[in-house]
């Protein structure tokens, strides 16, 4: 605390009048903070109320339903952990989780790797018109609704679709098939659709990360005699670690929560080869009318998503 004195000039009005005690100031400050707190709270409440009503409440209800046997309409019976036990015994459900994990390769790893590659390439001619064009083209799939993407790719991958026509054109008629209708190729084919959609997002995010790298780093590296590859691994890659983290997280969640693309292109078929948990929850809830069982799978599935995503968050966090 600084001592305020009224000197001869008497001009130090900035200083608190001597009568104002230290206590009063603190009270005023608290009042102001409280007022600000109320305002802040007022601003948060509408959003928080919606969040509670449409996210937290359903979440809590799902957990609750998972302990009941319920058809969605008539009275339910409490069954404890029975629904969870049945999940572990269903080869179909376990298969769907396996499929979702496999989709991570196509929905996440492929677009992140390709995104890095394209972003690093585009960065080199960042200001040219070609860069703008390729950025736009690669980002375009993000703008298209997933349902439309699914329908379009269903046509492209059909037995007489463009993909097969191209293969026949280059003399690979032997490998043509109905890509989405073959149990061995349906899941990778669905993966191609997901990769196509996710590539644009990853590329743009990584490119944004790369533009903020200090150019002098590259200059220094070049003086030290580093080539393009060395430059990429020594400077570009470590600098966009956080962006990679975001890309991987977002795309892994998209892979695990995949529903629309699969629903449109294969509906889980043929022979459950593309069945994913999202679809299985939907079938259990709305066709089998086992709301409890569907909720149990949803809870397990949420835990699985967190178990996969949280370590990645930790890994890529900047210290």
């Amino acid at each position, binding site marked *: 605390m600084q001592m305020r004195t009224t000197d001869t000039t008497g001009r130090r009005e900035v200083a608190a009048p001597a009568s104002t005690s230290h206590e009063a100031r603190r009270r005023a400050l608290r009042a102001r903070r409280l007022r600000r707190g109320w305002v802040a709270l007022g601003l948060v409440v509408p959003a928080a109320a919606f969040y*509670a009503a449409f996210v*937290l*409440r359903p979440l*809590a*209800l799902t957990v*609750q*339903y998972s302990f*009941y046997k*319920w*058809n*969605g*309409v*008539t*009275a*339910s*019976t*409490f069954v404890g952990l029975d629904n969870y036990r049945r999940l572990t015994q269903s080869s*179909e459900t376990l298969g769907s989780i396996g499929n979702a994990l496999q989709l991570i390769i196509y929905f996440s790893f492929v677009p992140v790797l390709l995104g890095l590659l394209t972003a690093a390439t585009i960065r080199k001619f960042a200001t040219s018109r070609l860069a703008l064009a390729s950025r736009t083209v690669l980002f375009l799939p993000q703008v298209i609704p997933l349902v439309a993407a699914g329908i379009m790719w269903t046509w492209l991958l*059909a*037995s007489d679709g463009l993909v097969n026509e191209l293969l026949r054109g280059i003399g690979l008629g032997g490998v043509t*098939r*109905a*890509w*989405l*209708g*073959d*149990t061995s190729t349906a899941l990778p084919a669905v993966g191609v659709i997901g990769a196509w959609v996710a590539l644009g997002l990853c590329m743009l995010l990584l490119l944004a990360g790369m533009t903020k790298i200090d150019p002098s780093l590259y200059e220094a590296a070049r003086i030290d005699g580093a080539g393009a590859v060395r430059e990429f691994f020594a400077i570009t890659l470590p600098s966009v670690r956080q962006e990679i983290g975001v890309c991987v997280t977002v795309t892994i969640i998209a892979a695990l929560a995949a529903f629309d693309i699969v629903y449109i292109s*294969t*509906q*889980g*078929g*043929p*022979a*459950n080869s593309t069945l994913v948990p999202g679809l299985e929850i939907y*079938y259990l809830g*709305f*066709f*089998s*009318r086992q*709301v409890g069982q569907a909720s149990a799978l949803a809870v397990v599935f949420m835990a699985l998503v967190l178990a996969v995503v949280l370590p990645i968050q930790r890994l890529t966090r900047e210290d």
Partner: protein
Amino acid sequence: MSRTTAHPRRAVAAASLCLAGILTVTACSAPGGGTSDEPASTAGGSTDTADWTCGTEDVTLSAYVETGFPLAGKLFDEFSKQYPNVKFDVREDQFAVLTQNAPRVLADNPPDLMRLPQVSELAKDGLLYDLDDAATALGWDEWPASQLEQMRVDADGRRGNGPLYAQGLNYSMTGIFYNKELAAQIGMTTPPETLAELDEWMQKAKDAGITPMAQFNGGATGGLAFPLQGLMASYGDPGMINAWTFQQPGASIDTESNLKAAEHLQKWVEAGYFADDVNALDYSMMMSRFIDGKSLFIFNGDWESGNLDTQMPGKVGFFLVPPSQAGGKVGAMSAPLTYGISAKAEHPQCAAFFLDWIATNDEARTIAVEVGGSHPMGPSDAFMPEVDGDSVTAQTLAAGATIAKDNGSMEFIANATGAIYAKSWTPNLQKLVDGGQDAKGLLEAVQKDYESEIGG
């Protein structure tokens, strides 16, 4: 971000407090029970015909119907013309959406008329209006019993017996459509009379480079269930198949004659009679290939008769799946276009009167045939509109008469339970196509899923 990380403990505490609050609010009561299991009231229990009308006051019937099929709309228009005090408030959705929504809509937002999926679970849950009194009052009891038995449900949710819970706008018939021009190319001028003949024609078509059958079997709709059930009726007794579909005690799909049928289907698969991308074909792709002349046969129902008469007039023939022995009995999947009334509907009497009118009014019966393409409900000697003898519609109607004579009408095996089609028939039929399943395994797997679903 920084705020929450700065006070992680406080954030966690707040979050858990919040969650605990929500849990206390929601977790107090068990879900469901809003609607009771008790049977709904039955319209004052009247069997007097005079009580089952739309009266003279203005009435608006709320209807929830399937989109893409103009039949219901045409019937509504005609009814409003004849009974100007009745109006319709119509909501439309795709059948898959109707299937998902049915229980909740019937409970929370009760329509007077609704296009229904399989009714057993809905009836068992007390969501549908009991139409027994209407049946007595309006004389539905005198119709051929087989027309209504699929919509009768007993207290255990088994179909075939018990109170009537729905009515049909018409009833459809399935069999094999063929492209007459492609048939002529391979020398087929009359429909085959035995399964062996059918096999021969398919082989001839294949040899001539024509796809014998571009049946749909992709996604969640295993269309090979159509030929499979046709074959089942050729090898065995349709009554036994119905017993299974209606969940009668002890019924099994894994029988000797069904095994023969499934093996026959497997033979077709292995001989390459289906399109090579059969597991990627959906219903609309099948239709467009057939209409484009890229498939000799398709298994389908008479709901497409009107469409095919418009798109390929005079070029399409229809026959029922032939018997395994010449002159044997035939069967076909035949099902009413089911409409029900919610147990909580506002105007059940008027809705029931409308359903009766469809089956008994000459104008309505004409619409049922011309727009719907299928046979109207009602007494067997009722009025029938004239149809062009060369049309597919005429052929499917004639086939309907044969089925009635042979008592061969069957409910679709895919409707045995709510999930048996998407979760059991479809994946197993798709495996049959790609070699991952054989005929015996197919029937065993479906029977196992069936038991776990109706038992659990």
